[in-house]
Structures are given as C-alpha cells and as structure tokens.
C-alpha cells in the first residue's frame, strides 16, 4: 500500500488516460492503421514469397529443386509429355530454396497467400495449377 501514500494522485494512470485519449481522437499521428482485410488488401512487396508458379517454357524438369527442398515438398511429375515439379503446399516451408536453386530461374513464388483449403489433397499443387506462360513482347 506504499504506492498510495507515495503517489495518491495516481499521476501514472492519468498519464495513461491521456495517451489513450490521444488515440481515440487520433491526435498527433495516431491514425487508424488496420485495413478491412477481406474487402481491402495490403500491397505485397515485390519479393514476397507466396505460392509457387513455374514458367512453363523455362522449366527443364531437372529436379534440382526437388533435391534442394528441405522438406520433401516437391515431386517431379509428368504433365503433357514433359516433366514439371508438383508442390505439396501442406509441407512447404516457403523458404525459397527451390527458387534460389533453379538453374533456369523458372520458379517464382508470386502466387498469392490465401491458400487455405478443405482437404490435404487439394493442397497438392500440380503443374495444371502452377504453370504460367511468360508474355513475350513481339
């Protein structure tokens, strides 16, 4: 109870009240900072690591990404007569080692971040869902 006799005026609490009051009325660079997430999204950095996508012309199906993945996320599967990686995102660490390792720079991780799904099977992203074709300026 020493604190009452020392500081009966409760100046510490009053100081706190002033800080919260400043926030209520947004005084002095204290604006609302949140965004209304599903309706309004924040801009991602260009380097953001999200879902993988594979350049279908560049990928040579060499399997270096497969051997570099720390978690066994990647499997090389046949698709349309060529070999492409298949990502099991349920196991992915999003570390980016596959992207770094790819000798042809075919793997990008720009596929977004809203990846929740209802079953484990649908988390396996085969070539049909991750391939993209680079736009070539003619």
């Amino acid at each position, binding site marked *: 109870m020493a604190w009452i006799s020392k500081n009966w005026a409760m100046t510490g609490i009053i100081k*706190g*009240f002033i800080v*919260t009051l400043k*926030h209520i009325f947004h005084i002095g660079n*204290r604006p*609302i*900072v*949140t965004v*209304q997430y599903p309706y309004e999204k924040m801009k991602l950095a260009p380097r953001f690591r999200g879902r993988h996508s594979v350049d279908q012309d560049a990928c040579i199906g060499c399997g270096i990404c497969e051997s570099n993945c720390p978690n066994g996320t990647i499997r090389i599967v046949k698709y349309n007569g060529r070999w492409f990686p298949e990502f099991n995102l349920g196991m992915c660490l999003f570390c980016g080692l596959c992207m770094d390792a790819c000798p042809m720079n075919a793997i990008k991780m720009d596929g977004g971040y809203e990846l929740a799904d209802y079953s484990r099977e649908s988390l396996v992203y085969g070539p049909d869902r991750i391939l993209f074709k680079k736009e070539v300026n003619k």
Partner: protein
Amino acid sequence: MIANAYELIVNILTAIGIYEPVYGFFQSFGLEYLLRIIIVVVEIVVLLVFVLLSVMFLSWLERKMFGWVQSRYGPMVTGPHGLFQPIADGIKLVGKEDIIPASADRWIFTLAPFIIFVPALLVFVPLPFGDTLILSDLRMGLIYIIAISALSPVSILLAGWASNNKYSLMGAMRAVAQDISYTIPLALAAIAVVLYVGSLSTVDIVRAQEGTWFGIIPRWFIFMQPLAFILFLIASIAEMGRIPFDFQESEQELVAGFFTEYSGMKFAMYFLGEYAHLFAVSGVVVTIFLGGWTGPVLSPIPVQITSLVYFIIKTYAVILFAMWLRDTVPRVRIDQLLNLGWKIMIPLALLNLLVTSFLLTARVI
C-alpha cells in the same frame, strides 16, 4: 402529482380519453385489477426491451471503443459501422452446442446463468429514468439497490460450484470475497448522501440535486461529496467486475473464471448480464452523484422526454468512462484489491461519513 410511471400512463390515457371507457369495460366484469396488471406488464415489457437494446448497444460500443483506443476500426461489417454485430453474435451463440460437463451439477449449472439477470434487472425497479419515469418509487430505494446488487455473486458462486472446475471455483470464491469487501464502502459512500438528503428514496435524492449554485454549477452531489463519489465509483466498478477489478473472470489467470465451462446461449447470458449490470450501476451512480435526470427544462418539450435524455447522456458518460478505464489499465491482484477495499476505502468512507455528519449537525451544509 404524478409519482411513477403507472400513474403517468393512467394520466396519459385519461388525457386521450381512453382510460374511462376501458376502465368501465373492465369494471362491468368486476375485473379492474386485470387492467392494472396489464398496465404494469406493459411497463415491464417496455423496460425489458429498453434494457436489452441498451445491452446490445453497449456490447457494440465496448468493442468500438476498444477499436478507437487501439488504432483499429472495431466491428465494421454487419450493418452500418457494425451496429448489428451483437445480433450476429447472438445468432451465432444460439446456434452453438450447449455443453454441460459430465461431472457438473446439471440443474444448478443450467439455472445459474439466468439468475445473474435477476439482480441486474431488479436494480431498475427504483431507478428514475426521468421525471416520473420510475417503476416504483420505493421509500427504501437506495438500500434496495445496494442489497440487490450484492446478490449477483450468488449466481457466480452457483456457476463456479456447479461447473466442477478448479478455475471456476477459484473465480467464484474471488467474486464472493470481492463483493463482500466492496459492498461496505459502496453503502458507506452512499449513506453520506442519504444523510444530507434525509431520505432513501431515489426520487428524493434526485430532487435534492435540482437547481444550481451561483447559477452555473449544478447542485450535484459530486461537488458536495467528491470523496464519496470516487469511493462509490471505484466500488461500483469492483462490483461490476470490470478491469481493473475483474477477478471473477480474469482470463489470463483463471482461463475464464466462473464461466469457463459455459458455452452457447448460457455464455451469452453472462455476457448480457454483465452489460445489464454495467448499465444499472452507471444509472445508480448518475442518480446519486450526477444529478440523475435533472437539467435545464425546455418548456415546450414534455419534461419526461428531456429528463430521460439527460439521464441517458449522463449514464453513457459514466459507461464510457468505465470503458476508457478498461482500455487503459491492467488488472490489480486479488489480495491487493482486498487490501485496497478494507484498509483504504472503508476507513476513507467512514471518515467521509464522520465529516459529513459533523458538518450537517453543525448546519454548515
């Protein structure tokens, strides 16, 4: 002279010219009491609807306030600025599974959430919402309010015991200890006002605060009894069980305290009960210390309406203060709370009582 809401309704009906024929109609069957019952039931329904709407609004306001303080928006999606969020929550909670633990005492467990509403609602009986807007002007109004609000730990204790959970039991025990310690300074602080007014009736207390000093300062008891006001406010917040005194449910220590095991609608009952209690206690604080429904009379508008508006504005000011306090401070510890209650607040309240009675005897005030 109209004394309460019943007579107000009768007066209005008479003025319109409905009361006499209706009364005669009931009289012809010898059932005058039925008409009285109907009028009282209407009053109660209006009060209940008002309280429930206020409670829903309060639960929205609390979150909104949290949002403003924390640089957030708060609820925004359901309705304009999330105003219908409480309804959405209610629908969600009704749809949830109602779990009763296997080792719980089924009947008490089910009964406890409904008991919490009883004291919170009974407090409204002698609470003057405005000039003549009072259910019943009890001569023992203030004592009644203090006694009834001391009932709420009964429900908490029942819930804590019936849940058969250690955390629940500890929360319930804390609630009882807290309530016993804080009812005393609450009553002592209020009695200082009663000494001055000379009546326990809430209406008399409000009437004593009409008028102004020097034409500017309203004659509210907050200015005459500042110490009693502070003590009463702290004790009320402790009785409500809100941060910084929310030991009965302190989530970081006791998971959720006495309602750890509750889910679905029973959980919602506690939630609603808490806000009903908040509204009731704020109303009591306003009635005793902030002049109740008094305020400048605007002659063309009926005094019932203006006084109701004044009362609601003042009540919401107290509520917003309680919410602001909750946003700012952490929780004290249970033994520190009891120390504060017994070693500081009760002596201060007694001192205040002594000084007040001395000054009254000496006819200084």
